[in-house]
């Protein structure tokens, strides 16, 4: 049944299944591709999921149910209400709890046979090799470029497979990066995008169900690797488009010049991934680009006093529908063509968005177009809701 060398060798008597476990896993045991031996391989496998959020949720739930013996979870975040739309490991009663705690409780409820190892910390260049060392497979469910490159490089250095998944809005990617047998993440994308050019899920949104589709692909690939069955996604990039409901597959090749898994690697130990992803430079650039700000309380005072101040909202119409403070709406991408609508005769202009990032760009753009007295509303409509008017919903 095996099509390749299983990642976890058959434990040959070192691991046994109890009668309860035999009942629990009966649908696996009757399949020749898994059978008793395969179920014991799953039980002796040690899998690490990095992140217990959108991708980590379906991953951890299915791997636990499937009978993985040791499941490590890395996360330092706490459960927030806005997570519940997609992070199905966590429930409403978990809001405010550390994610690793709520994840552990849920996993133990699904399958008490799983040994859950909690790593309640951020993954860093200092701890990644040590944490990864104990595991057979690393599953990447993170949400940012520095951690993705860190996970990749640590897996290459340790010779472990990295089961990759990534999502945005209605689209997902999945692959298995295993430098021992094929390309790594850096062969595909040698460098990360500069900060700000690619929107994150927090900015761009994500369909709540999407991580379910991608996370279960990752879980499937993990189980296949352990058992040595089927064709793994090594050297292939799976693209999923939920709107078109289509899967496409691209070929990936190992780059002989790859800086970490190529013939003459230049990255031979973990580096500073924040710096690699341009994050400190971006901060410096942001400081150089600093724009005048106004706090929501100062804005409120000015409006209450009837001062001549014009309020502009640069979010999208669908966001305006969710929450607004009655300001004029011109979405940021339409602003250059619609500046003529802002004949404000020298009065002050306060520009807001959701949290202050887009409105800072709008202020910069307006200053360059010759507007004076333009202010960025610090922390946007979120701050307005928090400090001025709680009836405005936060989203």
């Amino acid at each position, binding site marked *: 049944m095996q099509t390749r060398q299983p990642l976890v060798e058959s434990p040959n008597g070192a691991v046994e299944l109890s009668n309860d476990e035999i009942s629990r896993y009966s649908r696996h045991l009757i399949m020749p591709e898994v059978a008793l031996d395969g179920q014991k391989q799953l039980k002796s496998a040690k899998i690490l999921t*990095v*992140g*217990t*959020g*959108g991708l*980590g*949720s379906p991953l951890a739930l299915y791997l636990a149910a499937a009978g993985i013996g040791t499941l490590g979870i890395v*996360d*330092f*975040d706490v459960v*927030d209400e806005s*997570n519940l739309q997609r*992070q199905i490991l966590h429930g409403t009663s978990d809001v405010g709890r550390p*994610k690793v705690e709520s994840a552990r409780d849920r996993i133990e409820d699904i399958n008490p046979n799983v040994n859950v190892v909690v790593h309640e910390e*951020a*993954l*860093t260049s200092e701890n990644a090799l040590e944490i990864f060392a104990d595991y057979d497979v690393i599953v*990447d*469910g*993170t*949400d*940012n*470029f*520095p*951690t*993705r490159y*860190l996970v990749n490089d640590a897996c290459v250095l340790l010779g472990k497979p990295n089961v990759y*998944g*990534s*999502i*945005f*809005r*209605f*689209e997902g*990617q999945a692959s298995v990066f295993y430098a021992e047998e094929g390309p790594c993440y850096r062969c*595909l*994308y*040698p*460098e*990360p*995008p500069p900060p700000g*050019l*690619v*929107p*994150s*899920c*927090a900015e*761009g949104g*994500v369909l709540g169900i999407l*991580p379910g589709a991608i996370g279960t692909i990752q879980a499937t690939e993990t189980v296949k690797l352990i058992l040595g069955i089927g064709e793994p996604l090594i050297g292939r*990039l799976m693209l999923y488009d939920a*709107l*078109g409901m289509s899967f*496409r*597959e*691209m*070929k990936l*090749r190992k780059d002989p010049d790859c800086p970490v898994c190529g013939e003459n690697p230049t990255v031979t130990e973990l580096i500073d*991934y*924040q710096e690699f992803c341009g994050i400190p430079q971006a901060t410096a650039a942001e400081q150089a680009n600093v724009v005048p700000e106004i706090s929501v309380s100062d804005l409120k005072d000015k409006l209450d006093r009837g001062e001549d101040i014009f309020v502009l909202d640069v979010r999208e119409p669908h966001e305006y529908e969710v929450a607004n403070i009655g300001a004029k709406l011109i979405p940021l991408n339409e602003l250059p063509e619609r500046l003529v609508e802002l004949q404000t005769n020298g009065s002050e202009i306060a520009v807001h968005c959701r949290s202050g990032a887009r409105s800072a760009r709008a202020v910069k753009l307006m200053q360059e177009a010759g507007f004076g007295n333009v202010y960025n509303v610090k922390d946007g409509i979120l701050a307005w809701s928090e400090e001025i008017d709680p009836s405005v919903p936060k989203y």
Partner: protein
Amino acid sequence: MPKVKIPTPLRQYVSGNSEVEVGGDTAGAALGDLTDQHPDLRQHLYTGDGKLRSFVNVYKGDEDIRYLDGPDTEVSDGDELSIIPSIAGGSAGGRCR
């Protein structure tokens, strides 16, 4: 005419389309025509000195043009080019600091 499949993060720069028909005999010319039709897309695909950005991969069918003839890769009627940018989304929390 060849067509270019546009990924979600870049659709806002091509009037929301998921696919654009383009002219040109090579991948480079086809992408050039695409950015002529949609100038806002240019800075997301190319660096200031005109090189394809390293976090954007272009495929002809299922092959990365880096492993064909790069921008000189021939394209003809009915060929499908895909732009595949890196995306990082997954779960908040796995973040390194």
